[in-house]
């Protein structure tokens, strides 16, 4: 069956990019000052102050990608799923929580403990954006997020699922080997979305997704390349005003 990439977001420490915005230089800590992200949080969440960095970056990327696809209304639940790849998960928060367990654990932080699972960020996104579809973390060997893309393709073939998000999220502990950090989230819809850019793909039960040329989509990076996010965004590069 045909599926369409209708939204995409990349979040790094010092920039973000979407299909609509191109690259925007901005400190990740300031992302929630962007109007549509701020509005979402102001409307429904009283927990924002509790979010760890992993959750903030992940939630920002999901909010940007859904806005790209014009699917970021928060007034109803939708059968959208979210499969998230990444290797370290909540490890940085795990370390922070464990520091609070000195003195026999009597002063351990319940809030930090709540965020010591990699799928908690998905739970926050589900709450914020009304995602009631299949949601879990799935990391596999091979190229980045390939396993997550394959699994998402299967869900897209099911009648009940409206759309799927596939993401990659990484916040590295300081002692970890150097590696890529940040978040990538793509939105896959089953119907053409007249309000959004779209890259047409085909699902393939054995290989996950294919480009119309027949080439297998074996990583999330292949899709970013096909979406020309880098090329487009270099031309559109600008500094974001926070006024």
């Amino acid at each position, binding site marked *: 069956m045909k599926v369409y990439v209708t939204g995409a977001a990349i979040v790094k420490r010092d920039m973000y990019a979407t299909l609509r915005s191109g690259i925007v230089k901005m400190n990740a800590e300031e992302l929630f000052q962007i109007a549509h992200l701020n509005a979402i949080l102001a409307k429904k969440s009283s927990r924002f102050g509790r979010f760890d960095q992993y959750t903030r970056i992940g939630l920002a990327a999901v909010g940007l990608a859904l806005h790209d696809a014009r699917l970021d209304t928060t007034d109803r*639940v939708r059968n959208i799923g979210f499969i998230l790849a990444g290797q370290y998960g909540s490890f940085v928060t795990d370390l922070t929580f464990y520091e609070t367990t000195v003195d026999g654990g*009597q002063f351990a932080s319940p809030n930090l403990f709540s965020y010591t699972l990699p799928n908690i960020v998905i739970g926050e996104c589900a709450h914020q954006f009304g995602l009631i579809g*299949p949601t*879990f973390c799935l990391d596999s060997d091979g190229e980045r997020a390939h396993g997550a893309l*394959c699994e998402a393709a299967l869900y897209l073939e099911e009648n009940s699922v409206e759309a799927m998000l596939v993401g990659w999220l990484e916040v590295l502990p300081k002692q970890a080997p150097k590696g890529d950090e940040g978040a990538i989230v793509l939105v896959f819809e089953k119907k053409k979305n007249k309000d959004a850019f779209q890259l047409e793909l085909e699902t393939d039960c054995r290989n996950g997704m294919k480009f119309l040329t027949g080439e297998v989509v074996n990583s999330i990076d292949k899709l970013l390349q096909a979406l020309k996010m880098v090329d487009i965004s270099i031309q559109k590069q600008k500094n974001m005003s926070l006024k």
Partner: protein
Amino acid sequence: MANVYLLDGDAETALSSFEDGLFSALLAKKRQFGKICRFDTSKLPFDSAACIEFLNDEQNESDNLTQTLMRRVLPKFTQLPTINTIIWAGVKGNAEFIENGAWSGDSTCSFPYLPRHYSLWVRDQLGYEDAKLIEVQAACASSTFGIAIGADLIVSGRSRSVLIVAADIVSRFSFIGFSALNVLSSSVCRPFDVDRDGLLLGDGAVAVLLAGEDYVKDLGLTPLAQLSGWGIANDANHITAPARDGRGLISAMTQALRKANVKPRDIGAFCAHGTGTIYNDAMELTAIEAVFGDRHFPVFSVKGALGHTLGAAGGIEALICAKAFAEGVVPPTIGLKCPELKSHGRVSFEKQEFDNKRMMTCNSGFGGVNVALILEDV
């Protein structure tokens, strides 16, 4: 849709191993909780869990306790022709590395936790070099999610056989965390009881082998059960509290029924997540009533006997369901004294016969996750 079978499995708990009579121990209403000796609990309001006795004595220099526990469930799977995919579904295996100081600022430890530590280790132990590795994280429902994802791999033709492995020990990290959340029981874990006051943690490891029809025929083995339906959904409600109306679980159960092409009346018994916390059990009873109406049929939880084994829980419960087909009864809900109103006629402190050969087993977890499986006797 291609058939998926639960071909074989093994599990370890504080009560017993799957092979050595776990089901019989449940029927005999045994439970295995005691004061924790593994770490200091003197400054905490809770001190009880189901830890496997003398597990430390089996530990060798290169393994931690999670690996030591896993060594008990892997031997059964070393002689297969092949395993196409290994899914690791443990939840907090990294805690031991953190507790040992491997990631502290001044650590000189040469063997810190690295991503995919356990899935790579399992593959190495089993020797299936070509097996693809997947790591699944869905909180306390992780191994059940692993089973659902494994079934997807088989139905889609991407794998002929999938081994789901999970292990979680009662770690200082998790115990203190659950203590801080105030969800631990200060007495006895009593799933679905009016006086329930929380969960108790337990050591647990599980390995479940899923296979397609061709693989089963090639091996000439009789499967433990057929996996005919599965469903996954999110509550979209809260990261640690379940939706009180049970909407996510209802959706997962409904999807599983649809996939198995059966009606609620076709389900003979129900293995609940049944943690013994006030809100989880209330949510589950609400969801059961929404899907099954006022029908009385056996519902049970094993966590009053084994404790909550986190990532391993759902896999262990799936194996217990498979064993229930062979025995014709489901185990008693241990710890239960005075059932909640909505559980009358369903949950019992005695073993219960069930009237057909199809069961549903469900788990829910932090992050709003819910999963339902339907198993059939073969």
